[in-house]
């Protein structure tokens, strides 16, 4: 009540208390209290804060304080409403819950990953659509107004055919889906929107945003812990306490789980009791080398096949479109998808030779599928680059031709009409001679790849899962053996295969988005349909796994793969932006030497002069080299510190473990198992080798009294025991005597030869005696 007369110190103390109460409110939900207690504490804390925040507001600066308090409250309320909104927006909660209750958390984790991807692609689509596609559609020139936006005269009569559209030619090719449609005007529309700059920045920004999101998710996942235990340290404990999946809500799945847990326990018990079987190591090694060799061969074969097919497609492109069958036109995509379909089961079959533990076998399988996809993708890219270079050559020729034709026109015109003011040639956009526009070509290839990949995946599910389930179910009535229990039975959901497929699909999107802005939108649709289709398929055609093995301890394994694929997809795009010249007559960068020239242009023309100077200085090699060197040094330093921390961590762990073992052994009265302690004990003098002690002059009485006083304490415990209880002795730095001391400590090092620890006095007397 006398708040005005509060001293500074009291104010501070009060402020601290208020802060503490606020922190309590924020962490209330993480406290292991009963709800009633939480509610009571909440009310108390809120009342306290209300009352004293008002009090603190008095005195100097109260208006500012009151304002701050109000803003904080509003911010908290806003954050809470936003969280509520975000949670309400999360789609497919019911579906995922159903899958979880039927199949457990591991299968559901694929669908959670799919949902996360969908969110990511939605944001990317938002960027692409809002900043690139929409401005061009709304503020750019309409279809048919300029050459690049019009279907050429030669193709016009087939432009609407379904087969042509399905190949993404015809009207599709000359639409906003692909790179070639975009005009290179520096500014469009009333808002003076800089489209080419926006195109470049969005193209690169897509990678930046994806990187940020992936790293943030990895950081969040890494907090889940689960590290630090050695292999087999807690096998039984973990099986007992963490094997039951609380998400299961379906009786059949529960029965399955009981059975698998029982089997798992039985296996572990057997492993405990049995020694390792004697295996033939040499045969095993030979089989493993053979298996790896065969797999390398198939990887090489698939790479070669793709290269060959792409080369063939280049030849096909020369021929007339109508003479080609559908298979020949789509050969590349078809072959790639087929390889992605056939090779993984092939690898699995070959891997039977290797006879690994299922978890290790899964890791190998994942590694091989990764190598397969990667190899296929990069072979495809290299073949595509060959095509691009060929197109660039052709373009040069056409460009020269066009320039020559234009000059001819001007020459003719001026010679005819004798003026210098020559209007531009009046040619219909459809009749203009076009360059090959390699970017659109690349975009079309990627789109076709994604589409065929989608088709193959859906067909596989339809045939491999659905048809199989139907056959097993209905043919079982009239078949000789039990189809459901034996071959082929119902399929299990292949988690790792599907996740890898998703990761690589995203990689292709990242690569192709720069050349085909519509690709991201296509992917959003694809993920949407995938979600519903695969949910339906898994619920109706699959059975829960018998044994579940995770590929790795942490959830970051697949995120790490995604990160790797992100970097690998970044490389080709950056390479093309930096080195290849853009087409001269299509796309937002036409007319520039290199694509990134738009940035230079913008810096020169739109930004104030000093920023241009800054950039010129920043791109000076004399500045970049030291910067790179500095970064390398920083990396090295961070690496060393991190290693140091790891070492300190290990040391601490070891110390804790040692302390615990000592405790345990002390309790059980066992000898120390610590090797260091054992070594120390072995170093102590062996009393049995020492001659019996002789009577010598007595050392000063105080020492005697002290020693006698000390000894009963230690001696009482040991009684007649002649041995040293090492832990106690060494840790207390006790005296050496090993037997009960009933007389004053005798001579140390009594024999003449044994000169250990003799006192000068004794020496003198002994010297006298021995002489």
């Amino acid at each position, binding site marked *: 009540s006398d708040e005005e007369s509060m001293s500074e110190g009291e104010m501070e103390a009060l402020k601290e208390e208020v802060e503490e109460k606020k922190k309590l409110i924020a962490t209330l*939900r993480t406290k292991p209290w*009963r709800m009633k207690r939480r509610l009571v504490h909440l009310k108390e804390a809120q009342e306290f804060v209300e009352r004293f925040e008002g009090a603190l507001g008095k005195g100097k600066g109260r208006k500012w304080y009151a304002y701050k308090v109000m803003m904080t409250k509003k911010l908290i309320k806003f954050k809470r409403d936003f969280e509520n909104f975000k949670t309400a927006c999360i789609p497919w909660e019911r579906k995922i819950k159903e899958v979880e209750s039927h199949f457990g958390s591991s299968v559901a984790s694929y669908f959670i990953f799919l949902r996360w991807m969908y969110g990511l692609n939605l944001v990317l689509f938002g960027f692409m659509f809002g900043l690139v596609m929409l401005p061009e559609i709304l503020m750019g020139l309409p279809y048919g107004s300029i050459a690049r936006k019009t279907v050429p005269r030669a193709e016009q009569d087939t432009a609407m055919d379904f087969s042509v559209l399905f190949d993404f030619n015809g009207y599709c090719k000359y639409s906003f889906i692909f790179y070639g449609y975009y005009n290179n005007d520096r500014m469009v529309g009333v808002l003076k929107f800089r489209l080419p700059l926006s195109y470049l920045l969005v193209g690169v920004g897509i990678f930046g945003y994806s990187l940020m999101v992936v790293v943030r998710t990895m950081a969040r996942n890494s907090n889940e*812990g689960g590290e630090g235990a050695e292999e087999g340290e807690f096998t039984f404990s973990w099986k007992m306490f963490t094997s039951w999946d609380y*998400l299961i809500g379906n009786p059949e799945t529960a029965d399955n789980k*009981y059975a698998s847990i029982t089997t798992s326990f039985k296996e572990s018990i057997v492993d405990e009791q049995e020694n390792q079987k004697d295996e033939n190591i040499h045969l095993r090694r030979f089989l493993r080398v053979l298996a790896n060799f065969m797999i390398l061969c198939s990887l090489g074969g698939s790479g070669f096949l793709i290269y060959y097919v792409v080369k063939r497609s280049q030849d096909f492109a020369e021929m007339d479109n109508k003479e080609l069958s559908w298979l020949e036109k789509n050969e590349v995509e078809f072959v790639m998808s087929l390889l992605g379909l056939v090779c993984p089961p092939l690898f699995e079959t070959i891997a039977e030779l290797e006879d690994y533990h299922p978890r290790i076998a899964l890791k190998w399988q994942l590694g091989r599928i990764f190598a397969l996809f990667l190899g296929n993708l990069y072979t495809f890219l290299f073949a595509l680059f060959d095509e691009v270079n060929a197109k660039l050559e052709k373009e040069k020729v056409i460009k020269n031709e066009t320039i020559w034709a234009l000059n001819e026109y001007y020459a003719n015109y001026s010679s005819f009409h004798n003026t210098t003011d020559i209007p531009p040639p009046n040619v219909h956009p459809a009749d203009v001679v076009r360059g090959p526009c390699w970017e659109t070509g690349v975009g079309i290839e990627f789109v076709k790849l994604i589409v065929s990949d989608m088709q193959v995946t859906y067909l596989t599910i339809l045939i491999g899962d659905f048809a199989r389930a139907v056959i097993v179910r209905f043919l079982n009535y009239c078949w000789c053996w039990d189809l459901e229990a034996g071959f082929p039975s119902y399929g299990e959901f292949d988690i790792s295969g599907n996740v890898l497929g998703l990761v690589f699909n995203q990689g292709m999107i990242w690569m192709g988005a720069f050349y085909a802005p519509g690709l991201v939108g296509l992917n959003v649709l694809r993920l949407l349909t995938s979600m519903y289709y695969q949910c339906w398929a898994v619920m109706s055609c699959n059975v829960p796994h018998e044994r579940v093995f995770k590929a790795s301890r942490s959830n970051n394994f697949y995120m790490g793969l995604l990160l790797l694929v992100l970097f690998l997809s970044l490389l080709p795009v950056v390479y093309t932006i930096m080195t290849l010249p853009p087409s001269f007559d299509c796309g937002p960068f036409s007319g520039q030497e290199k694509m990134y020239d738009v940035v230079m242009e913008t810096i020169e023309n739109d930004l104030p002069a000093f920023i241009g100077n800054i950039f010129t200085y920043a791109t000076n090699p004399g500045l970049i080299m030291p910067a790179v060197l500095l970064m390398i040094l920083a990396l090295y330093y961070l690496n060393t510190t991190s290693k140091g921390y790891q070492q300190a961590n290990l040391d601490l762990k070891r110390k804790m473990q040692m302390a615990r073992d000592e405790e345990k052994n002390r309790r059980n009265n066992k000898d120390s198992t610590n090797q260091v302690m054992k070594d120390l004990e072995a170093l102590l003098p062996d009393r049995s080798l020492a001659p019996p002690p002789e009577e010598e002059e007595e050392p000063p009485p105080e020492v005697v009294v002290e020693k006698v006083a000390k000894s009963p304490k230690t001696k009482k415990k040991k009684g007649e025991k002649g041995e040293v209880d090492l832990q106690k002795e060494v840790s207390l730095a006790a005296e050496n005597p090993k037997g009960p001391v009933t007389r004053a400590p005798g001579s140390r090092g009594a024999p003449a030869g044994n000169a250990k620890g003799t006192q000068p006095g004794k020496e003198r007397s002994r010297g006298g005696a021995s002489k």
Partner: protein
Amino acid sequence: MGNKQTTFTDEQLEAFQDCTFFTRKEILRLHGRYRELAPHLVPLDYTNGPDIRVPLALIVTMPELKENPFRDRIVETFSEDGEGNQSFNDFVDMFSVLCEASPRELKTIYAFKIYDYNRDNFICKEDLHQTLVKLTKGELSAEEVSLVCDKVIEEADLDGDAKLSFSDFENMISKAPDFLSNFHIRI
């Protein structure tokens, strides 16, 4: 925001949001689930905080709990009287602790309580015995059960008292990779 509901006052909803990991909508949905367990017992209007408890036998019929071998222990742990009769507060508390956003430390504490059958703050061999029998539905032989329990104590017991204290349990669970993903109920 759809403020037409009359089940809770706004302060009550805000208080629940502060004390659990749930949003407003989820709390209302939870109340709906709680009510459908015993519609004649649980009133629609909770504004004056009625003291109603739903018995254990009804709560374990929920589809999320029905197949769980530890359902009885879970409900008992989260009930104030220890018999499994849960008020709405207990009900919400249970699902909040078991939800995805709940931190590892909190889940560890409650997991320890759930597996401690005799409630002596230690997981002794008897507790392990009962857990294992529930988990394998009695399929393991008596000596196998005994062996496994001994192995668990050997692995996890650090202070050598032949039973697991909370710190032993916590040390073992914190390194388990599957704990968080498996000890999770989605409501």
